[in-house]
């Protein structure tokens, strides 16, 4: 029996985004939809989110005009589809401090936010580096730093140093240092609540964009597979993760399941029905970054590549 229902919630998207921004080396391969998503983890006693989206008031116009981001919906509108309000959210796991993941904290007035300590400390350090290294500062909004101070002052920002088990019952946090960002974090939901779970869900943030990042062909870059887990297999893997991971839920997500059947509303993918042993959807999914990021993925993800036959 599942303890949580897990929803990927699309709150905006870019209709046509170049595939090379999604899969390493895929230049001149056309365009795909690039969704902007966060994840809701809804349980009997907790309502948690993975990331909170961006601050539309400040950047919506610019993102729309310059980069074609459309169909933005507020957390109120989006969560209403799941019968919740932003103030019902008690916990937020911030996968990383980019503006489109950490920029909308003001809309969640009662939530406690979890982020890796290294993510914060290293950004502060990076800001002090010389001009020529400022590419490292992309997608970081100084305004979010100030909002972080406000959260910390109100004891609503919790920094995590490495792994944290059972941050909520059955939910673990794991770092992926020096990957997408200095202190990226991913979330593991053991949805049967067992320590050796048979029902594990991985919420990967921006560490994986699409399944092709893991199982796609590497022809275009001269390797057999885009992600080669051989190196990872040599790494000792804790026995607890030696289970079937059903699905990595990827936030840059092209949802195929929409309960309302309308394109104008936020697109929602229900990943698992509460109190049920059947899951509803699989991700078709979108983007990823560079091969380097994949190289740095935690060894857990190799199990995804061992189960490549996801429902289409």
């Amino acid at each position, binding site marked *: 029996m599942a303890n949580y229902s897990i929803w990927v919630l699309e709150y905006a998207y870019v209709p*046509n985004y170049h595939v090379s*921004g999604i899969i390493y080396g895929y230049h001149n391969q056309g365009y795909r939809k690039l969704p902007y998503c966060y994840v809701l983890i809804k349980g009997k006693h907790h309502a948690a989110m993975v990331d909170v989206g961006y601050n539309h008031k400040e950047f919506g116009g610019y993102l729309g005009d310059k980069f*074609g981001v459309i169909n933005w919906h507020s957390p109120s509108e989006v969560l209403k589809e799941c019968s919740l309000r932003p103030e019902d959210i008690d916990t937020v796991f911030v996968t990383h401090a980019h503006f489109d993941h950490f920029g909308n904290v003001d809309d969640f007035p009662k939530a406690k936010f979890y982020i890796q300590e290294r993510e914060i400390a290293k950004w502060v350090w990076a*800001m*002090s580096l010389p*001009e020529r290294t400022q590419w490292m500062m992309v997608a970081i909004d100084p305004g979010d730093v100030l909002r972080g*101070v406000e959260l910390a002052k109100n004891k609503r920002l919790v920094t995590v140093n490495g792994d944290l088990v059972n941050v909520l019952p059955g939910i673990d946090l794991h770092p992926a240092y020096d990957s997408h960002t200095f202190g990226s974090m991913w979330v593991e939901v053991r949805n049967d609540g067992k320590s050796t779970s048979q029902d594990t869900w991985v919420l990967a943030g921006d560490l994986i964009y699409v399944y092709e990042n893991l199982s796609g062909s590497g022809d275009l870059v001269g390797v057999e597979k885009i992600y080669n887990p051989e190196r990872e297999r040599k790494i000792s893997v804790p026995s607890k993760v030696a289970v079937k991971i059903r699905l990595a839920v990827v936030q840059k997500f092209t949802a195929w399941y929409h309960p309302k059947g309308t394109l104008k509303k936020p697109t929602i993918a229900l990943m698992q029905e509460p109190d049920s042993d059947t899951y509803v959807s699989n991700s078709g999914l979108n983007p990823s970054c560079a091969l380097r990021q994949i190289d740095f993925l935690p060894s857990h993800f190799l199990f995804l590549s061992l189960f490549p036959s996801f429902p289409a």
Partner: protein
Amino acid sequence: MTAFSEMLEPRWNLPTVMVGETIAGHDAGTFPPSDCSEALVQYCLTTLPAFNRLKRLLGQAGGILLLRELAISSDGVGGDLLRLAVDRFRDARDALLSRTVPPFAAAHAAKLKEALALIGSILQSLEDNVGRSEALLIQLRLARKCLIDASDNRFGMTLLDFRQGCCGHTSIKHIPT
């Protein structure tokens, strides 16, 4: 109204800049969208490095305050972050104050100087380990407001650099066909 230079002198050697000060005839630091004159382009392109320095300083000062709130030590992060921020502040101050500003850009330059003074004051408080977080946060917000007022997307003067972000690529909608 307090002149920050009074608080900051002699350590920071700043000119007198009043918080909230505006120049007659201008109430914001921005330029008309229709203005693409050579002089404006020249001014903005030469001002961009100073703007970027201030933006980073804002993040540094806010970040140091955040680390302090969270009781996170900067040991092992990459050195004395406050010292690094003060060094960057000096660079920014010297670059900004040594410039000759054309009259049409006086309001814009005043916004940048106001941000500089505020950030200098915050760093000084952090260095002296005085000032409540709340008060420092207010100053940080004021400094941020100055930079927002002085932003101009056309010349890359934005608080958030989208150029290489995950979303930061021009979509097909904007590519000529």
